[in-house]
């Protein structure tokens, strides 16, 4: 079977089960676009390649399958970079395909030539430049295997234009033979025994549940473990949804904007069970004072994460679900009533500070908006956030019951992520209710994708939490830079009119009483919609651990001021 390189690209995608790709054509990828018309893969034309990358990422996060984006050489390829780095930092299985100039022009600074494999070397799990059409099928098969395997991640395949045009006998490699692609190890017996010993001895154990819970499909195994050992669970941002928020052992989020009682529990625990999380600086605060009272067990798929930030007593390098399924049956049931009561007292104290429990002062707070979004949907929605204050409020006020119901850029913190990632998520889960929650700043970074949304007739609802500031940066300026608001007040377009310009119905909400009604009205109408929520301008996300401070040295919401207001 003689095929061109361009045809091999699509043959490969079809063989890998790819149904949709996100992309933008251009000179160096034109042969591949020409061949596309012969294959049953849906192509979504984006408005900027960064959007394509986030869509592939959002698709992968929502489904667990590999997301694919395509771009041309030069600026097309470099526009992908932010999206690739976003996928890298959160370990999202994605494949990026770029065209490059004809192989004989490589290195000549030809028109729209960039060394995209060089540029993306540190932000991909792997990448490859293909100049020989006979290598193409194998390289693409490897790309998918690498993207999915072990700790997942982005892989970029750069294909020269003449390679796309060249023809060869298409032969599928039977299997992938990559010496460096390590199989996922089974949990080792010794590690399991040592972990079981520590668990049996612990009086104040605490689970730190991360993204790995979602990635390994460990929700049920984790809940069984926690129930049998009566161990409370603290969640990382990317772990949210991995354990139902309503589960009585689920304490909520840890870290910089985690609940104060959660961070305090981490500091007072005598055993931390780190399950599929990597002790990021946003969850540890000052490492020198982090969780000094505890022994630590780390279950992690990537051995290079073990001992990177925090020294641990037992490390199990394996799939989390397999580990828990091996570990739980070996444990005796336990009760930690006193420990849970102690945490519960902090929980009660936190509730008194919660803005939802403050008297209505007529102001609209982002927390109200997000709480009402949750009330309207009962949490049965895929929420895709941008990055900033609204992201943290979402994590605090939207209770996630299911894995993959929150899609957010954690590691890289990429503003502009939400809208395109939500488009990708909607393709992955067409039957799910999908909401974008974005700030006015981040939304403007990729709002051009409103055209993509409309063009694809996707039913995605958008909540712009509009406070007229780059809110999180303003908050840091308020706390740490003496309220000198350098470059954070921001002018925005009329988002209602903007939506309408794209044919997307727009609504504006300025009062707390209007939130639920408007949300429900929008939900009852099929098709995309945008709501511009004009929220309190200078509200801060509480509590907060200042960067590098001790985890339990948190800035709390003042109690009295709100009550008296």
């Amino acid at each position: 079977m003689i095929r061109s390189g361009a045809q091999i690209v699509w043959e490969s995608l079809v063989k890998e089960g790819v149904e949709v790709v996100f992309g933008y054509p251009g000179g160096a990828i034109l042969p591949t676009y020409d061949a596309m018309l012969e294959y049953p893969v849906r192509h979504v034309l984006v408005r900027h390649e960064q959007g394509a990358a986030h869509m592939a990422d959002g698709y992968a996060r929502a489904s667990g399958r590999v997301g694919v984006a395509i771009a041309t050489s030069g600026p097309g390829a470099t526009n992908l970079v932010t999206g690739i780095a976003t996928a890298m930092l959160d370990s999202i299985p994605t494949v990026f395909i770029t065209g490059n100039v004809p192989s004989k022009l490589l290195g000549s600074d030809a028109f729209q030539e960039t060394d995209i494999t060089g540029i993306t070397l540190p932000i991909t799990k792997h990448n490859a430049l293909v100049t020989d059409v006979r290598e193409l099928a194998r390289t693409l098969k490897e790309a998918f295997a690498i993207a999915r395997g072990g700790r997942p991640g982005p892989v970029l395949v750069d294909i020269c234009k003449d390679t796309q045009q060249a023809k060869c006998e298409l032969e599928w490699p039977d299997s992938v033979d990559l010496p460096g692609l390590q199989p996922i190890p089974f949990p080792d017996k010794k590690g399991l025994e040592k972990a079981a010993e520590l668990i049996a001895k612990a009086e104040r154990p605490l689970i730190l549940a991360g993204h790995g819970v979602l990635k390994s499909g460990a929700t049920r195994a984790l809940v069984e473990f926690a129930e049998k050992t009566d161990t409370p669970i603290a969640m990382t941002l990317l772990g949210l949804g991995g354990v139902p928020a309503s589960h009585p052992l689920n304490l909520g989020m840890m870290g910089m904007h985690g609940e104060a009682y959660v961070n305090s529990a981490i500091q007072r625990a005598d055993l931390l069970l780190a399950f599929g999380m990597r002790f990021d600086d946003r969850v540890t605060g000052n490492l020198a004072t982090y969780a000094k009272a505890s022994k630590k067990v780390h279950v992690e798929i990537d051995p290079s994460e073990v001992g990177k930030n925090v020294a641990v007593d037992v490390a199990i390098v394996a799939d989390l679900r397999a580990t828990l399924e091996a570990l739980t049956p070996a444990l005796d049931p336990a009760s930690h009533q006193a420990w849970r009561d102690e945490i519960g007292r902090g929980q009660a104290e936190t509730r008194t500070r919660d803005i939802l429990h403050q008297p209505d002062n007529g102001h609209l707070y982002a927390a109200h908006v997000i709480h009402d979004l949750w009330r309207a949907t009962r949490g049965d929605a895929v929420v895709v956030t941008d990055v900033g204050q609204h992201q943290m409020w979402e994590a605090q006020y939207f209770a996630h019951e299911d894995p993959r119901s929150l899609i957010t850029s954690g590691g890289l913190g990429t503003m502009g992520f939400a809208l395109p990632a939500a488009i990708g998520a909607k393709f992955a889960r067409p039957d799910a209710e999908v909401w974008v929650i974005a700030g006015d700043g981040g939304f403007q970074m990729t709002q051009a994708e409103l055209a993509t949304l409309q063009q694809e007739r996707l039913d995605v609802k958008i909540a712009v939490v509009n406070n007229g500031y780059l809110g999180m940066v303003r908050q840091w300026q308020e706390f740490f830079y003496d309220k000198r608001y350098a470059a954070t007040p921001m002018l925005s377009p009329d988002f209602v009119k903007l939506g309408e310009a794209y044919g997307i119905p727009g609504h504006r909400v300025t009062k707390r009483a209007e939130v639920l009604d408007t949300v429900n009205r929008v939900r009852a109408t099929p098709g995309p919609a945008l709501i511009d929520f004009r929220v309190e301008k200078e509200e801060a996300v509480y509590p907060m651990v200042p960067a590098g401070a001790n985890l339990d040295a948190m800035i709390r919401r003042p109690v009295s001021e709100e009550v008296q207001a």
Partner: protein
Amino acid sequence: MKHTLVARVQDQPGVLNRVASLFRRRAFNIDSLTVGQSEVPGFSRMTFVVDAARVPARLVEENLRKLIPVAEVHDVTHVPTVDRDLALIRVKCAPGERGEIAGLVDIFRGKVVDVAADSLIVELAGDAAKLDGLLELLKPRGILEMVRTGKVAMVRGAAAGNGNGNGN
């Protein structure tokens, strides 16, 4: 402390770039890096000497393993190895001093491989301590130019062939 890591890597374009990029990005401190052919066609062998003061050598090892073209990595610091470093040293030498320098070099089992009117080139292979020893002695005479290959290492005797980086 210094650790010696030995890796077997696929011999393909860009592999050295990947390794170098990893060391740069993670700020791993590298003393020397050598690359050359191995006994297996299609695979090169790399020897790294890394300073593990800031980052544990195990993390360097695990990060190297994550690179797709890297087939194996072993830390051979604590197993008996044969270590070799090769130096070429051009040292100032008046015609009357040649015999004396040749004598010194001979004690270290080195060789004089080139002689010019006022200098000569010494070749010396050995472990780092031996090279440093001769360099100390030659320094007062004036070292005009020097190149060292960096360390290569191979596990000795019975420990070899058990996955210590000496083959499959």
